[in-house]
């Protein structure tokens, strides 16, 4: 009995290790449910928990397959870093060319969002720097203001 319990524990630990390498079920379930809500507006379709495992595993093997193909594409062009274009070519090679247009638009959206965030963070840094520079001149500000007022009056 104790040996069987140990075997069960080993199986459980192995499952835990492999689950860490899999994609999170909660997110996969959300994707499946969102798609089902698009497909069946009237009736509610549910998904068995066991079948979710199939979705997760399918996605994981897809990543393996696609990354190996993208790696080959990258090697053929004598580069070492797999980039987005390699992935697009790989998708065409494995007969998933229909995925390429929506992926390109999604990537463009990400690039635009990233560029906006970078510019916002740069602006924030500049304003914080300006704020720090103004602090030591605050004591002299009174004198400066008087000078400004004089300039305005002269005008």
């Amino acid at each position, binding site marked *: 009995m104790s040996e069987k319990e140990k075997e069960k524990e080993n199986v459980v630990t192995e499952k835990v290790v492999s689950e860490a*390498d*899999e*994609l*999170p079920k909660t*997110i*996969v379930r*959300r*994707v*499946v449910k*969102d*798609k*089902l809500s698009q*497909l*069946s507006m009237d*009736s*509610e*379709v*549910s*998904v*068995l928990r*066991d*079948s979710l*495992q*199939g*979705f997760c595993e*399918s*996605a*994981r*093997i*897809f*990543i*393996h*397959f*696609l*990354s*190996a193909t*993208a*790696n080959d594409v990258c*090697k053929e062009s004598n580069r*070492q*870093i*797999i*980039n*987005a274009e*390699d*992935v*697009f070519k790989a998708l065409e090679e*494995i*007969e*998933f060319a229909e*995925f390429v247009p*929506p*992926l390109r638009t*999604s*990537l463009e959206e*990400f*690039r635009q*969002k*990233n560029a906006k*965030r970078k510019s916002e963070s740069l602006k924030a840094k500049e304003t914080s720097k300006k704020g720090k520079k103004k602090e030591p001149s605050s004591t002299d500000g009174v004198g400066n203001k008087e000078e400004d007022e004089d300039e305005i009056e002269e005008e």
Partner: protein
Amino acid sequence: MKRAGTYSGILSGGISGRTGPHLLPLARIKKIMKKSSDDVKMISGEAPIVFSKACELLIEEITKRAWNITVQGKRRTICKEDVASAVITTDTFDFLVNLVLDSANSQDSPRP
């Protein structure tokens, strides 16, 4: 006030919609990519994002086909067999056939 990182807003879907363009964790995708082959060493920052969306599209495609099978059988619950049938009947999902057959065999094999 803590500021959100680059990816957190994208993963949470941003301000507008509940589902963002990228849902799957990019670090885990990178991990799986590196395990696919010993040759895979360097991956650009944009590649996992493309992979994440590609996985989402794949899951949606399998869901659609499995749902068709469920509806044809006049049922309301997608089961594992529906997913397996969807994979087997689609040519582009040939790379998943072994997975489906393995899972079917593991179910059929008698437990000690």
